[in-house]
């Protein structure tokens, strides 16, 4: 366990070293959220609410969705693909740790860094400029915290899955890009899932993507009733468990293939 914590720490330090990243990042996230704010204000026009969300709730939704994304988002799919292509993964097999866990921990280190240095200050800055509604209820904050941890887990699992697929394709870039697009759309980052037509919503009930962005953002904006919150957390938890299965299966097959072909 100590070595995994060390990995989180190292990543954290690495992130800290890239300070240009840090300053420019906050600025750009703010512009991004700002542009969405105006877009949504225009979409609302003089309507009071759409699908149960007011303009202010919508702005809050967008702001928190992007800030939470800073926490759960990582590039480990690309990193894994890169390391597989360069043949570095073979070396990782002989190291005394589980490669995928290690990657997850690196992602977590990055995420914690961005949460602390990026999302929180960014959210404060954004809330000074745009009308954003913070919930007064402590329970909302607690549920939100739990929920974004699951967001991280589910998103990372999907990244691991796409990363490991590189073993089976010569070039995985297309898949990785496609995955990113699908997540942006179906996770609820761009649009709350409740805005979609009903048939599309029922399809998405059977996919893990809304666990990534829609659920934590709705919790934060108080868009869910207490019962819906419990349901949503259960949804996240179940998907976090289910996704372990394909990852393990693919990893075992990949390992076998690597041994046979010698990388």
């Amino acid at each position, binding site marked *: 366990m100590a070595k995994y914590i060390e990995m989180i720490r190292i990543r954290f*330090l690495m992130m*800290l*070293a890239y300070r240009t990243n*840090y300053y420019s990042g906050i600025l750009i996230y703010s512009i991004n959220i700002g542009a969405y704010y105006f877009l949504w204000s225009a979409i609302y026009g003089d309507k009071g609410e759409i699908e149960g969300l007011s303009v202010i709730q919508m702005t809050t939704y967008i702001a928190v969705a992007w800030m939470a994304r800073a926490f759960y988002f990582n590039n480990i799919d690309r990193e894994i693909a890169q390391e597989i292509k360069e043949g570095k993964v073979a070396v990782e097999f002989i190291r005394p740790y589980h490669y995928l866990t290690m990657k997850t921990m690196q992602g977590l280190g990055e995420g914690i860094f961005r949460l602390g240095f990026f999302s929180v200050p960014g959210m404060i800055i954004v809330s000074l400029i745009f009308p954003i509604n913070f919930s007064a209820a402590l329970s909302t904050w607690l549920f939100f915290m739990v929920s974004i941890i699951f967001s991280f887990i589910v998103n990372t699992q999907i990244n691991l899955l796409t990363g490991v697929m590189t073993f089976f394709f010569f070039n995985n870039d297309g898949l990785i890009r496609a995955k990113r697009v699908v997540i942006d759309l179906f996770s609820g980052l761009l649009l709350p899932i409740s805005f979609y037509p009903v048939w599309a919503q029922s399809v998405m009930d059977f996919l893990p993507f809304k666990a990534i962005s829609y659920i934590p953002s709705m919790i934060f904006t108080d868009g869910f009733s207490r019962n819906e919150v419990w349901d949503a957390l259960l949804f996240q938890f179940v998907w976090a468990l289910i996704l372990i299965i394909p990852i393990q299966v693919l990893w075992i097959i990949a390992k076998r293939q690597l041994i046979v072909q010698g990388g």
Partner: protein
Amino acid sequence: MDQVIQVKDLRKDFKSHSSRPGLKGAFRDLFNRNYSIISAVKDISFEVKQGEMVGYIGENGAGKSTSIKMLTGILTPTDGTVTVNGMNPHKEREKFVSSIGVVFGQRSQLWWDIAVQESFKLLKKVYNVSDEDYEAHMTHVIDSLDIGPLLDKPVRKLSLGQRMRCELAAALLHNPPLLFLDEPTIGLDVLVKLKIRNFLKEINEKYKTTILLTTHDLTDIEALCERVIMLDEGQIIYDGKLANLRSNWGEGKQIEFQFAEEVTKDELSPLMKELDAEWTASERKNVWVANVVNEEHVISEVIGRVVAAHRITDVKIHEISTEEIIRNIYEEGVVDGKIY
């Protein structure tokens, strides 16, 4: 124009930031960083004549590759002047690089996925080489390097030795009067090395191509270069004939004795009385080395005395290798920036 390379007071400084240790230090770095200026090359001057083959040597971080990169127009000097082939490399970069050839041993100039031949064709267009010139020159190059059978293979399928020969051919495609070679023989086997060396000698004689060579393998330099330029900590510490380096610093021989039984330094030392010699123990058992000056009577005297006093199973006489000479120079350090 006789001088191909003229370098005067050439200097390159890099700004580097040091990070503070630990998590707390990293936080402080976020707002305020420590900068320091590091001079990779400190005011060096030298000239190279047309047709010379010069060995450019130094330890890692001595400023070798930084200065080569300034000579090839990749880096802009902080100070000083560089004139190569009558041009200022970084000012007229595109015109200038047509007049040089560059081989980086660790970096491929060829396109990974496509056949060698296609890379050549592309480079031919890049360097504006006419069909006649290409035919006349490259047929010969391809023959001498023996790469004809490799031309239709993609670069990624070649072995290191094969690739290196193709790299060399690619660098010579436009028949440049000046060739920079950075570690061209790294990781190659002896046969390929020999082939490459012979080829370089040949083009040097045929076209009077000037060659500047950096390498860790001093046998390359011994085989090719009359002159060496030696760098340490960004300064030139030796610039002259390789032969002089040997006679000034390598003036001595080593006589290696294998004794039949165990001997101690106390037993051996008296044998060397009033002779200019010294004993060192070898790593092997019962083997001792006498370091002596390179004079006939001393050598025979030492051997005579040792053989008379002890039973010997083997004797070898070694000349001190260039590598050892250079190691000695670096270990003993430099006095006043010059060695003589």
